């Protein structure tokens, strides 16, 4: 197992390196560099130009820049070294061109808002999708099952920014025009109090949850049906167990196994949903930061977000795979 984990970690590190390197190359390909304006002043001496290039760290070859970047990013791995040992300093992702500060600070400030949104919507999703999936599997082809399936298809096909805009119009703008006041706020994440935050969370969470409930309910349904057709379920029924007990204790617990992998794989898709949703609702999270930085050519932030995210994805997948062997001893990665 240890060998497998180490192999996966090495492969994952390679992936992350490849992703950041490609981003670095893309940054070089960009025609309008963020510092281009500074270099275009009239009567600018070569020394000043060089100084500006040096300030932005672009006076050196690409590979040197890249290795410097890697060295700064891996800072927490080696800065504790020494006597007495110190607290490791946070990774240095460079300076943002627009946030007027280190990229790391910009990202961590926004991470909180994203976390609030994602965790809430994920909890809501699970609370609704799991019972729906179980029920529609147990009562296959019933009215409920057909409704859930139809809903799932619509949910998967729904353009979520459009759904969000329609919700904003119907639940915030339209009542406001008719002097009822906004039923739900349309943008931002409130003034910091928990009550206000919850109020602002309603619409974006609906948008995010509708989409993921659709996918999850279908997934759980399929996985439950698979398990319900197994011999041991027939055995459990044959020995006279109550239907409820068979479904919950025998079927549902086993149907959770493939679910573990899904959880690990879903981190990136959850974030994708959040990028568009955050923009629609002006939610001050990482997704909005990413889109804003992209429009401002702020590549240090883009690379930083992609780097952190791909690390999370690699780790998430690995943890899911390892948890799977722990939950289902029949699976083994050893050859």
């Amino acid at each position, binding site marked *: 197992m240890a060998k497998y984990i180490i192999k996966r970690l090495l*492969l994952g590190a*390679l*992936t*992350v390196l*490849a*992703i950041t390197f490609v*981003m670095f190359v*893309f940054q070089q*390909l*960009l*025609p*309008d560099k963020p510092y281009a304006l500074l270099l275009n002043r009239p009567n600018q001496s070569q020394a000043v130009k060089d100084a500006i290039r040096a300030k932005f760290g672009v006076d050196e070859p690409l590979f040197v820049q890249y290795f410097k970047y890697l060295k700064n990013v891996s800072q927490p791995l080696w800065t504790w070294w020494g006597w007495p040992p110190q607290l490791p300093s946070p990774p240095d992702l460079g300076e943002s061109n627009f946030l007027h500060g280190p990229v790391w600070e910009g990202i961590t400030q926004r991470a909180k808002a994203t976390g609030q949104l994602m965790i809430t919507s994920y909890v809501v999703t699970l609370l609704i999708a799991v019972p729906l999936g179980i029920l529609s599997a147990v009562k*296959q082809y019933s009215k409920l099952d057909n409704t859930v399936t139809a809903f799932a*298809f*619509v949910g*998967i*096909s*729904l*353009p*979520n*920014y*459009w*759904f969000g*805009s*329609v919700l*904003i*119009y119907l639940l915030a*703008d339209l009542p406001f*025009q008719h002097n009822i006041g906004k039923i739900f706020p349309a943008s931002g994440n409130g003034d910091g109090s928990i009550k206000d935050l919850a109020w602002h969370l309603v619409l974006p969470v609906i948008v995010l949850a509708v989409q993921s409930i659709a996918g999850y309910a279908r997934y759980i349904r*399929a996985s439950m*049906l*698979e398990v319900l*057709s197994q011999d041991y379920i027939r055995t459990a029924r044959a020995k006279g167990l109550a239907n409820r007990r068979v479904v919950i204790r025998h079927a549902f617990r086993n149907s959770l196994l493939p679910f573990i992998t899904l959880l690990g794989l879903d981190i*990136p*898709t959850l*974030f*994708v949903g959040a*990028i*568009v949703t955050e*923009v629609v609702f002006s939610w001050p999270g990482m997704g909005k930061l*990413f*889109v804003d930085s*992209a*429009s401002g*050519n702020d590549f240090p932030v*883009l690379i930083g*977000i*992609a780097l952190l*995210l*791909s690390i999370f*994805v*690699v780790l998430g997948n690995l943890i899911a795979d390892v948890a799977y062997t722990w939950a289902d001893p029949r699976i083994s990665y050893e050859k």
Partner: protein
Amino acid sequence: MSVTTPTIGQPAAPGAAAPTIDFETTKEIGYYRLVWRRFCSRRVALVATIILGVLVVACYLGPLLLPGDCGDLSQISLAPFSTGHTPGTFCVDAPNNFLAAGNHFHLLGTDDNGRDLLVRNLNGGRISLLVGASAMTLTIFIATILGALAGFFGGLVDTMVSALTNAILSIPSILVLIIFVKTFNSTGNAGPIAAVGLVVLGIAIISWPYTARIIRSVILSVREKEFVEAARAVGTSRPRIIVRHLIPNALGPIVVSASLTIGAAILTESALSFLGYGVNPPTPTWGNLLNEGRDHLNDPNGVGFFYALWPGFLILTVVLCFNYIGDALRDAFDPRSLER
């Protein structure tokens, strides 16, 4: 491995062996006819196909029959990249027509430049459907080649393809796309053909891994079958084995993922256009129209809310149709999934 009584000359279907199918498997009908029959037995899928057909015809031929953007027939073009509006010209009656509500002449109303929204929606549909179809073709092309190579040769090729697959799947696709478009069209000045091509290429780059994985696993499972060994024994070359014996067996999954990929591609394109990194305006796509319409959501009189409503509704309809068709195709190619 094929239907219960295999008919001569039909390729074996992966996973088609299911003794409990209640379809007419014992009759001497071909495999693909059987698939077609099973597909037709799904009423939802048939309805979806018809709706989709009507929409495609409407998008490509509709603008011909309607008065142009400005009610001027001379401005209509069948070319897929037509914006339906000659740059630098203005609609004669435009000032009275900005953001007008739907009327007998402009059925869906007019946009902020006085252009007819029905025509713009249909023209946008041309681009959106074109992006979906070409992204799908490119995706399937890349995925089939790489998936088949990885599955057939294994070893180093397989490792390299798998590493590439994992790398691409490791970052959320919309992130990659934004950076991709940003890098190669940073000024937003690319012509319509270049912009569409860039978006198509980007979507194909992020979506081939999903299909390639499926194709690889099918090829892996068929590779050791007797008929492949027989083909090898009579001296068939390796490229021929891949093209004539292995890929036909993966046809079911390929067709299914083609259908699902179109839907996903249309959705991705519109999300990208919505964020401002898709095909740049004035070329209409459903995503662009939606994005423009969002600015006018609150206009109290005139087209207002409906400006953004229609393109979104069209996206939803088309993607829903493709998903239903893909689902029905999956059941038709793999009857085992019907038992569920």
